[in-house]
């Protein structure tokens, strides 16, 4: 399994039937493919749909139905369409059970940075700031390092996405939970030691007596 699939399959285990879930563009999108068949999760797409589904066949696409990443998608039975104010009303109003977002950095305060690199890349925050501010549970799905540099850092060096503490970080090496006591190492990936995680992390990690193995 490559690192993205490890991350996505671990994140998939956080979802329960009946939840309303928003998956960010890129890596988080993979999560939808890795859900058990008996799990009935409603996927929201912030461009205006609940009931996002992959296209069953290429030919069934409609130009008017895309996901937030611009891919042609399908709508499930029982889907609902709405405008952008309603879409973000659902997000900001606490109706979104889980959002899974990519990340550039997460720090010891549980702050996420994922929307710009000053002077280099200014894509904009899109819906990320609303999702982090409003979703009941925010899960960050990202690789543990970027070109060898740790992404779990003492303090974000990039502009943060929200002052809200995110709820869980899932990487290909570890599951980390931001708490009042700091970043707690909950699980390591199979074959990855606590020492390996610490070596790849510049933030201080709280290591409890028992650290689980990531079920993937």
């Amino acid at each position, binding site marked *: 399994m490559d690192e993205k699939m490890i991350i996505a399959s671990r994140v998939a285990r956080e979802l329960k039937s009946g939840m309303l879930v928003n998956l960010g563009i890129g890596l988080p999108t993979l999560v939808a493919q890795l859900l058990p068949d008996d799990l009935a999760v409603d996927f929201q797409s912030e461009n205006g749909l609940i009931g996002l589904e992959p296209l069953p066949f290429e030919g069934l696409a409609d*130009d008017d139905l895309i996901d937030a990443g611009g891919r042609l998608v399908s709508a499930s039975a029982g889907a609902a369409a709405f405008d952008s*104010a309603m879409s973000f009303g659902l997000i900001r109003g606490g109706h979104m059970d889980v959002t899974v977002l990519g990340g550039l950095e997460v720090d010891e305060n549980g702050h996420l940075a994922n929307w710009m690199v000053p002077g280099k890349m200014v*894509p904009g925050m*899109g819906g990320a700031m609303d999702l982090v501010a409003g979703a009941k549970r925010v899960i960050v799905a990202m690789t543990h390092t970027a070109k060898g540099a740790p992404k779990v850092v003492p303090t974000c060096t990039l*502009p943060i996405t929200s002052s809200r503490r995110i709820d869980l970080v899932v990487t290909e090496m570890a599951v980390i939970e931001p708490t009042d006591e700091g970043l707690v190492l909950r699980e390591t990936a199979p074959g990855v030691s606590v020492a390996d995680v610490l070596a790849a992390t510049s933030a201080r990690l709280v290591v409890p007596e028992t650290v689980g193995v990531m079920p993937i």
Partner: protein
Amino acid sequence: MTKLIELSDVVEKIPNGASLMIGGFLAVGAPLRLISEIERQGKRDLTIIVNDTNRAGKGVGKLIAAKAVRKVIASHVGTNSDTQKQLLAGEIEVELVPQGTLAERMRAGGVGLGGFLTPTGVGTLVEEGKPVIEVDGRSYLLEKPLRADFALVSAAQADHRGNLVYALTARNFNPLMAMAADTVIAEPHLIVPVGCLPPDSVVTPGAVVDYLVAREPHHG
């Protein structure tokens, strides 16, 4: 009693320097004929209020490529390499607004609110220059309404009074923009006789729509 107008005539009403809200999310639900005609007529110094600038040369990306735009207000400009280049070169002004705040600012502009309090952006760069107001122990940014001189929206169907119906994710910002501009121009896929749209299906009441641009007729 129809609001139908020729494409070129309605676009001639848009002066250089105007502010335009343009519907669409990655060009789905964007008024593509209006956009092309604005480019063709060589408008300049426009302020465009959009969710995103689509891809280089596509949808509103045409206006960016043509350097018709002085300022962009958007939630995301990362998919268009032209916008990135012009932005980093200081050739275009970009105001980035969180997507939910962008939608809500347009809504406030359309429904006569003086602003609203949102938790989005508190403690981030977005907070700069905005009052932070505490309500019941929680901090919020006071965000102000957004209006434009023109709204250019697309719709799945219209009737001749301008009632608009949208399809799936092509709805996005269009209904919000149709409420928030001095002049509203709609580009529906299909125009049907008055009385053919069920009242419950109408999302934008014709009363707020000024002009309809039809597709070229292709019957007969």
